[in-house]
């Protein structure tokens, strides 16, 4: 007995039985494990300090992370931070801004948020492990072309203005972090730093300077630094070890 004769198809003839397509199972667990994010403050700096110091600091950092959730974010993501302030009304102070720099290692790790409020540029340097911080919310998770966006101080204010009441943009767990390839337009020179010089290696500025100035800036290029072996610091193995340590401790 086959029901193919009774099947009504668009042709009018008896359609062959087509099995339904197999469901594609995206193993999200596997993909999540593939993408590991280790916060940069866990990686110890190069030096002759006793690794015990970093181990003890990491213990304290993990302890704090168990109590308070510090989300994954990069330079260029928009965050909202609520801090406890005795002088603020309702004792809590909320600041929204774009992360322009992540500095410091260990418990003293900081990140600087920038926003333009009422035509006034404001930057606040927050300490990640400061107990005064009550909540860190990532409103938009994204990366930029550069490691630090200090040049936003000399860019047109529209690139640093973010709505204080903006809604968080949802980011799915297994997707890659989007890279915003925005090229920022600058205010007329003079700038706080000569961003066109190759030592800053900035890719996120649309330089509208004349060719002569760009050529003159190339005079300060130091191409031998890239091959300097004494400056090499390969963190891949250290990262692996610390990642295992941190993820095991956090699962407990």
């Amino acid at each position: 007995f086959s029901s193919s004769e009774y099947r009504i198809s668009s042709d009018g003839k008896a359609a062959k039985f087509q099995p339904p397509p197999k469901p594609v199972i995206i193993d999200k667990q596997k993909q999540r494990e593939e993408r590991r994010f280790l916060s940069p403050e866990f990686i110890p700096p190069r030096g002759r300090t006793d690794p015990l110091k970093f181990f003890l600091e990491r213990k304290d950092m993990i302890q704090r992370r168990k109590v308070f959730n510090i989300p994954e974010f990069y330079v260029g993501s928009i965050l909202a931070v609520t801090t406890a302030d005795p002088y603020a009304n309702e004792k809590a102070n909320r600041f929204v801004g774009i992360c322009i720099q992540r500095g410091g290692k260990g418990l003293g790790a900081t990140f600087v948020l920038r926003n333009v409020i009422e035509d006034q540029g404001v930057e606040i340097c927050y300490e990640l492990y400061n107990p005064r911080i009550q909540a860190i919310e990532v409103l938009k998770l994204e990366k930029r072309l550069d490691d630090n966006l200090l040049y936003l101080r000399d860019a047109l204010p529209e690139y640093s203005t973010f709505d204080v009441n903006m809604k968080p943009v949802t980011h799915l767990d297994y997707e890659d972090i989007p890279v915003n390839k925005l090229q920022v337009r600058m205010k007329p020179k003079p700038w706080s730093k000569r961003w066109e010089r190759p030592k800053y290696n900035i890719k996120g500025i649309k330089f509208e300077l004349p060719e002569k100035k760009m050529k003159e800036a190339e005079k300060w290029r130091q191409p031998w630094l890239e091959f300097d072996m004494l400056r090499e610091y390969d963190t891949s193995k250290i990262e692996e070890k610390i990642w295992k340590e941190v993820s095991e401790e956090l699962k407990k």
Partner: protein
Amino acid sequence: MAVMNRRLGLSLSQLSRTVIQRHFSITGACRAIQKLTRVRVVDNSALGNTPYHRPPKCIHVYNKTGVGKVGDTILLAIKGEKKKALIVGHKMPGAPMTPRFDSNNVVLIEDNGNPVGTRIKTPIPYILRQREGEFSKVLAIAHNFV
């Protein structure tokens, strides 16, 4: 003759570049406020907002050190007059968790502490609230806090 033309050409291009006006102080590495720093008056007083060919400058800081931070009083020279002012924000990075502004902001004040203007639109740091006794009137006219 060609040398003269070249010199003229250079000065003309320089002239075309100097037409750009700025409202904030222009020096590169500006830090906290001391004598001769150009400041920006942020309240809506007439003295602070009327244009003058010289920017308001600090001529004295009422402090043991000559460096003024947020909450210090300074003496300002505006439009040929001397006026006291309160610092509400500077370009120098302070303690962590405190805001750093992109310009040196100042609010005009009388000798008894009364503000000259009636409204402050720019954000003011919350730390000024600590000295509620001295600056209560200035904090009352502030609208935004950071």
